[in-house]
């Protein structure tokens, strides 16, 4: 009897960390990028709203997030106070880098925010609308150069999807990879390339100033304040969201997962989080539970297929 009581006490003591309110969030990128900002905004909201007493953000940059992911999988095993931020780019990076760990090795909690892709041309370009660009692409795929972010990332995948939907061989696309949407922006503004593709946020200010023309966006519905059709309206069956998510450690119990999910939901509904999304221009695309898992599986399958089509993954 005494023995079981003792064992019960130990079990209770061990169960406490399941409700611990301290978190460490791994941002698998250098300070300043989207994942880092997501992690630091979470830190602010979780602490500011009193959901957690203390939140640490740790940067583990490298290789599209796969270095941070690998470290997280090996060191956070079964620890309910460890979180990692990730996103759509990671899905592609896991495949192109032949990463030994994948998103199946962590416990995805929820999709938090997302950005849609925008296809742009410089204001002086002769191309007036998305159909004009697609016609050029069909006529000679190599003659249309696209500037966007890193190879195998969301921008590159979107171009592959567009080509495929337009009936153009995706291996023929002429994609010029830059280290990010910002560096690509300079090439687009300088008319070094035919078109540009990156997150809408990278181009919005230039489009408002009239130096860039947005031809289309990759959302399902038109985006408020953006005078451009969706790709679907233009007859291309492509919708792509460059999302960011939060995941918990592998090997945690269902109770622990539920506790983390509850904390994240509380955070997403908080005013601090909502205000931060508004000032940063991030769309709230919160999706959790089985719905998120289903969306994730779908994205992983589609990304694998298109990366094979483009020829980046064998």
């Amino acid at each position, binding site marked *: 009897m005494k023995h079981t009581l003792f064992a019960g006490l130990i079990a209770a003591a061990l169960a406490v960390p399941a409700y611990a309110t301290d978190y460490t969030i791994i941002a698998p990128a250098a300070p300043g990028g989207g994942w880092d900002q997501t992690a630091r905004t979470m830190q602010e909201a979780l602490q500011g709203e009193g959901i957690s007493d203390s939140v640490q953000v740790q940067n583990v940059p490298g290789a599209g997030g796969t270095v941070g992911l690998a470290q997280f999988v090996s060191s956070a095993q079964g620890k309910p106070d460890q979180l990692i931020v990730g996103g759509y780019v990671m899905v592609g990076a896991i495949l192109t880098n032949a990463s030994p760990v994948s998103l199946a090795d962590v416990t995805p909690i929820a999709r938090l925010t997302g950005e849609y892709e925008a296809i742009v041309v410089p204001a002086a370009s002769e191309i007036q609308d998305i159909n004009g660009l697609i016609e050029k692409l069909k006529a000679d795929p190599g003659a249309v150069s696209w500037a966007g972010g890193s190879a195998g990332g969301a921008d590159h995948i979107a171009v592959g999807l567009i080509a495929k939907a337009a009936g153009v061989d995706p291996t023929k696309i002429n994609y010029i990879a830059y280290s990010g949407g910002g560096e690509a922006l300079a090439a687009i503004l*300088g008319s070094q390339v035919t078109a540009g593709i990156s997150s809408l946020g990278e181009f919005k200010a230039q489009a408002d100033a009239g130096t860039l023309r947005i031809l289309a966006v990759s959302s399902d519905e038109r985006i408020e304040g953006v005078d451009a059709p969706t790709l679907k309206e233009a007859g291309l069956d492509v919708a792509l969201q460059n999302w960011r998510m939060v995941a918990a450690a592998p090997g945690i119990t269902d109770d622990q997962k539920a506790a983390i999910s509850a904390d994240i939901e509380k955070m997403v509904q908080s005013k601090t989080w909502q205000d931060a999304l508004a000032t940063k221009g991030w769309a709230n695309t919160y999706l959790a539970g089985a719905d998120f898992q289903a969306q994730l599986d779908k994205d992983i399958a589609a990304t694998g297929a298109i990366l094979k089509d483009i020829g980046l993954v064998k």
Partner: protein
Amino acid sequence: MTTFDFLLQGLSVALDPMILLYALIGVTLGTAVGVLPGIGPALTVALLLPVTYGLDPAGSLIMFAGIYYGGMYGGSTTSILLNTPGESASIVTALEGNKMARAGRGGPALATAAIGSFIAGLAATVLLAFVAPTVVKLALVFGPRDYFALMVLAFVTVSSAFGESARKGLISLFIGLALALVGIDQLTGQARLSFGVPQLLDGIEVTTLAVAMFAVGEALFVAGQRGTVDDEVIAVKGSVWMTAKDWARSWKPWLRGTVIGFPIGAMPAGGADIATFLSYAAEKKMSKHPEEFGNGAIEGVAGPEAANNASAAGTLVPLLTLGLPTTATAAIMLAGFQQFGLQPGPLLFATNPQLVWGLIASLLIANFMLLVLNLPLIGLWVKLLTIPRPWLYAGILVFATLGTIGANPSPVELSMLLIFGVMGYAMRLYGYPIAPVVVGLILGPMAEQQLRRALSISQGDLTTLVGSPVSATLLALSALALIVPLILRARGKGKVLSQLASDED
């Protein structure tokens, strides 16, 4: 209103006591993180971002800019005194600066770096105010082929600028280019020479290589020679301050460094490191004392230090006018702008003139603060060199290791530091110059990417490389820089041959 009116209006914002306080905090922090290896301005601003959330936007952004400028000042200190460049922009400073320090002229080296930074920072900030929109237009003219031509020019001038033997210099450069291939190829996303080690996927960190080669290699070299060299400590010989001759030899490099640094900083694929290499090469070419290069020529400190500060101001041009960050610190400052709901870009000058001009005016004031802060510290810093050598080098090893682990906490990074340290020792032993390795690592990937982008855009047509006026001019200059010395050497055969002979031993 004219630019001048705007600037006056900005000064009235900047002279607000609270804003002055923010600027002071920024430059002080910046100097401190510049001196400490491993912590750079980018990380500092990232750590401060959440803290400043509730603060005044103008004040916070001015503080961030102060950190950026301060980091450029502070970075020179460890380069000169300890031969451990904390960031890629101060690698070149270590070449001549550390030689000067070891010859007992650490004071003048630090002084010319500080005053050069001040003058360049001041001139470049004024340029930022008056020519920002024009500079942006020029920077956008630079396409991939033009960048490639610029890299070719940098390679040619750099390989002739470093070391006495062209053969050894080129071997060093190619070691650097080979190391530059490690990691994910940016254009296809495929891993190269990473041998399944995930930490190698992002390539070899420039500061790790530089610290390993300069600091660790040097420490091993000194330890290896113990007993054969005397252990006399030469802290300061002559004055701590610059002599009239130092001034006379410094002012032109300061101005040239500014002229080189500002436009290169403003270019989307430029950066402070390229500016410092070009400035060093230019100073060596123009110097009346070329024989002093490699042994502590003051021009080799004055020019590059001015160039890196001018390029910091140049970086703000595309950031403010295009919303385009060209360095890590600028990227985080962009995040800072967005945190306050401001989108840098073509409309920022129109929608928030007070903030933009306040920021520019504050930078002018921050520059004065940095000079006042840094000059009196020189006397203190040079005392570091009076530490007995074994202690000093032990300290350098500790600093180098801590800095590397601090920036990237992984055993792989530490192993690279040690391996490259041993490599640096071996190269020193056999008389191979170190700097071209670092130059190859920094410029190699840029040159490769720009070349492949240019050829991809032209669909494989090689004539595109000379197809724009900018690229054609730059390539012609490179050809001249390569051929003219050859002709000169051919004419003065005897001298060259004797030089070659002396290189062989």
